[in-house]
Each structure stands twice: as C-alpha cells, then as structure tokens.
C-alpha cells in the first residue's frame, strides 16, 4: 500500500494517524490549525479567571482557582506539544496568535465582572468545552487524541469546582444569588456559541468529519449541552435566559431560542468587548519575556561550548 492507502485504511479501521505517517497536506494543515487554535484558547483563557486569583474571597477558592488557571497553561502546553509533532513550531504559533493571524475561542473575549463569573465559567464554559472535547479523545490524530484524554480528565475538576462554587454562593446572601443569576445571564448565550456556527453554515465540518478529526456536528453537540445544562440550572436555582427554552417530547430534546450569530461573527472578527486587551496582554508577556528566553538560550550555549 502507498502512503495514501495506508492513511485511508487507518481511518477506515478507526485507528490513529501518527506524526510520521503519510498524511494529506490538507489534513496536516487542518490539524495544525485546529490544535493551535485550541492551544491558544487555553492560554488566552487563563486571563479572564486569572484576574480573580489575587482577589479570591477565601484561601480555599484561591488555591482552587490558581490550580485551575495553572491547568489551563498545562493544557495549552499539551496541545502545542501535539501541534509540534506535525512540524509546527511553538514560537511561530505564538507569533501567529499575537499578530491576530490565528484565532482562539471567542468566549474569552467577554469580561469577568464578578466572582460568580469564575463559577459560571467552570459550569457552562468548561461544561461546553467538555462536550466539545470528549469526542476529540477519539480524534484520528494520535497526539491530539492523547492530549485530549488528559485534558478532559482535568476539565472535570474545572467544571465541578465551578458548579460547587455556584451552589455555595446560592446558599449565601441575596446579593450573591443575584451575582450568580447575572453571571448565568451573561455567559449562557456565549457558551452556546462555543460549538461554532450551525451545521448548514459550517463549511469545513464535512471534511473534518470524513477525516475523523471531528466526530459530531456542531448542532448535535450544542443540543447535547443544552439538554445537560437544563437540569443543572434547575438544581442550582437559576433561570437560563431563554424564554423559548422548553422540553420537546416529540424530539426528546429541549427546544431553544435563536442564537445571535451577528454577535458571534462580530466577536470572532475582533470587536468583542475584550479582544484587544486579551491579545495585548499576551503580546506583552511574550515581548517582556524575550530577553529572558534569549538569556537562557545564551547561557545554555555557553555551557555546552565549555563542556566540549
């Protein structure tokens, strides 16, 4: 069999493609783009919650949040590592991110206004991420699938800590309950947008499904997320901000209202509330760190020269 036949055969048998295997250029490019965007999302995603670490209202919450934001850096690193197996270079990917040439999840362009946002991000944003990501543990590209297994396990801690925080806050003062409802109102629709455009308008999806990079359609995953979130919201005692949301016995699923895709496109295009700040912050960290990275490389070079 030639490379292409081996590739097709691997996919047909539901086995994993590994870095040194032959693969179509389009597959490689798609894979690098998807993994890099995912990695960028983890790294940019540190910022909205990271802003609350120093202000966390108890030491236990502080430790949890610090560990969580650290995990996100870790997830970014697992993913960059997977992208580098395809010949991408992390320095180059970072450059593409801070020059705005590669995207990250638009959800992180919304601000975190109160500490309840930390809980709602765990519950809804990480919950949506889990829905998206669990099927990716079977993605056809081996290093990506393996990174996703680890990430999904760690995400379950993220989701649970968020939900637990919200439950605790709901047992607190009226002001706290209002904070939780307000945060739910602000994050619900952006969370639904995390699954991407509707299937009918998702041009790359069919090829990604054929390559078994993706395993379920955007709308399928979105529906699953809505169905899972409704009873969780009830248990919490918050209202999801969608008057059209109701159980449809015929479909066996919840119906829900129309998503504001105009807003989605605007945020993706860079005019979300926090786009500029998020990128500027990342760029500053990268630029401020340049002399440090250079110094470490220079020291290592001197030392290996001295050893010879």
């Amino acid at each position, binding site marked *: 069999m030639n*490379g292409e036949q*081996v590739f097709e055969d691997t996919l047909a048998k539901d086995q994993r493609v*590994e870095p*040194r*295997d*032959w693969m179509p250029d389009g597959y490689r490019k798609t894979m690098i783009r998807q993994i890099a965007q995912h990695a960028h999302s983890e790294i940019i995603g540190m910022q909205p919650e990271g802003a609350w670490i120093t202000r966390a209202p108890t030491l236990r919450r502080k430790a949890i949040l610090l560990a969580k934001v*650290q995990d996100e850096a*870790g997830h970014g*690193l*697992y993913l960059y*590592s*997977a992208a*580098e*197996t395809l010949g991408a*270079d*992390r*320095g*180059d990917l*970072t*450059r*593409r991110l801070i*020059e705005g*040439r590669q995207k990250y999840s638009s959800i992180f362009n919304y601000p975190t206004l109160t500490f309840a946002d930390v809980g709602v991000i765990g519950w809804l944003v990480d919950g949506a991420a889990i829905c998206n990501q669990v099927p990716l543990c079977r993605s056809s590209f081996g*290093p990506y699938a393996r*990174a996703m297994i680890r990430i999904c396990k760690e995400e379950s801690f993220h989701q649970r800590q968020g939900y637990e925080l919200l439950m605790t806050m709901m047992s607190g003062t009226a002001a706290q309950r209002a904070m939780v409802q307000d945060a739910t109102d602000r994050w619900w629709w952006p969370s639904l947008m995390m699954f991407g455009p509707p299937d009918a308008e998702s041009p790359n999806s069919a090829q990604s499904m054929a390559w078994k990079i993706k395993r379920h359609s955007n709308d399928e995953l979105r529906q699953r997320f809505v169905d899972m979130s409704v009873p969780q919201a009830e248990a919490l005692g918050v209202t999801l901000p969608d008057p059209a949301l109701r159980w449809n016995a015929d479909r066996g699923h919840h119906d829900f209202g129309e998503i504001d895709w105009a807003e989605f496109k605007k945020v993706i295009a860079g005019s979300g509330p926090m786009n500029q700040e998020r990128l500027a912050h990342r760029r500053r960290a990268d630029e401020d760190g*340049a002399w440090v*990275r*250079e110094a*470490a*490389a220079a*020291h*290592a070079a001197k*030392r*290996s020269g001295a050893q010879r």
Partner: protein
Amino acid sequence: MSDEIKHEWPLFEVFVRAKRGLNHVHVGSLRAADHEMALHHARDLYTRRNEGVSIWVVRSDDVVSSGPGDKDAFFAPSGDKAYRHPTYYAIPDSVPHI
C-alpha cells in the same frame, strides 16, 4: 518573515514512570533552554497530580526513530513468528497456573 520564527529554546521529549515496576512512557514534549530546565518543567507540567516517580527528558532532535516507510522491514519479519507468543501453545484448561 513571521514564517521563519523559531522558538528560542529546543524541544525536549518527556518520559514518565508512573510507579515503580512500570516502564517510562512518553507523555509529550516541552521547550527548555537546557536539560535541567527541561526536567524542572517536566515535573511541573506532566507530574503535578502525582503522576510519576521518575522522569526522563531527551532532546527531540536526538531521538532516532524508525520511519513509517521502514515498517515492513522493521516489523513484518516478526509477524509470522507466532511461536513467540504464549497463546500459540494449546494447554488444557485443567492445567493450573500456566
């Protein structure tokens, strides 16, 4: 050209022994300026939940690997040596501990 950008630090592959009695297993890679830094980073990145008792780091460009094209030459010759495998041998169920 942005396309020429390379990370300042080389890539290292990381292997972790999850517990005594197991082999080191490849878990991923990271960037570091030197081996010591790579070990430190590996500890922080890949074992922060008590996943390991021992770590190896190896410069990625020092890894020599068989290519997928070598597959037949490297691995096919053992494909017909079923006698290397325990299930090749029929042992009656009545024989214990074997």
